[in-house]
């Protein structure tokens, strides 16, 4: 009984859904034409693609804003895109391909993993300049130049400060890393930097989680330590909160928390607060202005600040210069990247570890 099952629409009405669909398609095209690119630029014609990790972490929005204002100063046309999450290399590869096809002069990229390497090589073969920001690629030669924080140095600052603060006490440590199933430099460098600063062996140079789970730390006055828990947070607040809660379930005596970035640290601090745990030392890396209240209150003991604005501006400048002079940017001799610097922000300074207060930090923070 299949003849025309209840299709009672009269023929005239069939056009209405069609017209709607047509309208939606046209609308989408118009929107993407308008919404896509940003910087005005009288169009000196220099086009640059800025590919961020994702659009949800405020750190990237801040970098985007710095890049946009520098681009409009120089009359550069900036196209900003990002992956869908911290581990989404697929979207980034597509965006690199699009930049090549669009005839961009260069790509500034905060990469999500080394799966993008071959796409970046293709871009360079096509004559584009590749600037890596925030996360140095492995190997460094994949990019023409890299502007990044020395993530290891940032981690070391955190670690040294923590060791000094402990003053010989036992350290019951929770390590809250970024990704569970992908290895990126940022994740490993900060984690290992922290361990180094604490004076704990890293176990394996290339991956997280291989350090001996207990022993003696040599930083500060030295003492015994154990790594009670090591979990991934995806660099997000919810991830940090869930991970901290699970870690506390595992070991309620945790007194040191290393977090990959400030959202994760804020989530962890929230979990600690609701669990009523006081006197836990939480350290992070980022340097965002919105995080300073946590530093001021001590919920986050110390944070190593980054300068994403510097990275973005340097990137835009480098590509603009290349467009004018044809000279490609390079890293400093003997270095894998341009160090945009790091500084420790804390209101409980420790001797032997340089830092500035949260009040002073409010002048140099980002976002």
């Amino acid at each position, binding site marked *: *009984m299949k*003849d*025309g099952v*209840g*299709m*009672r629409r009269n023929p005239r009405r069939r056009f209405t859904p069609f017209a709607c669909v047509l309208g939606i398609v046209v609308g989408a095209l118009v929107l993407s034409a308008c919404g896509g690119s940003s910087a005005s630029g009288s169009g000196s014609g220099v086009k640059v693609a800025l590919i961020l990790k994702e659009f949800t972490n405020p750190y990237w929005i801040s970098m985007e804003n710095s890049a946009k204002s520098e681009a409009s100063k120089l009359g550069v046309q900036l196209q900003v895109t990002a992956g869908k999450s911290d581990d989404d290399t697929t979207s980034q590869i597509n965006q690199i391909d699009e930049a090549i096809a669009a005839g961009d002069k260069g790509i500034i990229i905060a990469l999500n993993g080394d799966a993008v390497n071959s796409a970046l090589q293709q871009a360079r073969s096509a004559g584009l300049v590749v600037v890596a920001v925030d996360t140095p690629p492995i190997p460094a030669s994949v990019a023409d130049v890299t502007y990044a924080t020395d993530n290891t140095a940032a981690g070391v600052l955190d670690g040294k400060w923590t060791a000094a603060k402990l003053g010989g006490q036992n350290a019951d440590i929770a390590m809250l890393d970024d990704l569970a199933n992908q290895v990126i430099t940022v994740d490993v460098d900060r984690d290992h930097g922290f361990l180094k600063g604490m004076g704990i062996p890293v176990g394996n140079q290339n991956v997280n989680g291989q350090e001996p789970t207990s022993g003696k730390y040599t930083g500060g006055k030295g003492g015994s330590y154990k790594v009670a828990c090591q979990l991934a947070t995806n660099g997000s607040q919810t991830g940090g909160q869930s991970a901290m809660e699970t870690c506390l379930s595992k070991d309620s005596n945790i007194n040191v928390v290393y977090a990959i970035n400030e959202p994760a640290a804020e989530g962890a601090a929230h979990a600690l607060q609701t669990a009523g745990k006081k006197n836990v030392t939480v350290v992070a890396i980022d340097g965002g202005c919105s995080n300073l209240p946590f530093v001021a209150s001590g919920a986050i003991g110390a944070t190593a600040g980054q300068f994403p604005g510097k990275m973005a501006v340097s990137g835009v400048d480098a590509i603009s210069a290349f467009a004018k002079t044809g000279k490609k940017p390079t890293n400093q001799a003997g270095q894998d990247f341009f160090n945009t610097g790091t500084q420790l922000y804390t209101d409980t300074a420790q001797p032997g570890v340089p830092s500035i207060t949260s009040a002073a930090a409010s002048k140099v923070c980002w976002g």
Partner: protein
Amino acid sequence: MNATTDDNELTTVHSEPQPDREPVLSATGLVKSYGRVEALRGVDFELYPGEVLAVIGDNGAGKSTLIKCLSGAASPDSGTLRLDGREVHFRDPLQARQAGIETVYQTLAVTPALDIASNLFLGREIRKKGPLGTVFRLLDTAGMRRVAREEVQQLGITTLQDITQTVETLSGGQRQAVAVARAAAFGSKVVILDEPTAALGVRESGQVAQLIRRLRDTGLPVVLISHDMPLVFELADRVHVQRLGRRVAIINPSTSTMEDAVAIMTGARSV
């Protein structure tokens, strides 16, 4: 008799002249097309009180479409439909039901996941009295089950023992019984049965035939669409023959034979 073409609108009635009765359900000049296919090309139809009217026709004759127009599952492009003499337009099956026309589709329109009682009351569930029913919309499950049991017993259906059984666990004949019981329970003017025995064996066909007789005995006129000639000739008071989108004849089963009917249906003989 010479063969007449399909465009011949003559409808010869082989039955005795009808006494002066108003049809319960009637239609004149129903036309319905699906794209280029003209399923109905001007069909007339009458159903008199207390009768079993069989509708027969070959595949593609337009039986299904005719039934859909009568039951509200489809809207005719033109033509009029009358119920108790008054013109009606059904926009969906619900309206036809509300007017008192119950249809048992070939696919049965039951929900296998729900039990027999739920299926009986599907779309017309009873709520508990008072605030529980009005505010909290609580269903009167016990009440519906009670009524379902009574209905089933009244129709003499012995094969449905447990009305809390889900329909998917029932055999074809039992599902048919559920669908017919539903139509009988709520039908107030007309019951339409579309190929009720198509998927059944001898035993279960016989049980359905009995059900149909019971229905007629309660005073409800029944429209029976069927390929099953023995069943048609056993039950029907009159037979409406559909061919190529039109009604070409009305046959009296007591004076005509099954061979006559088949011949008219397939066009081997014209009227």
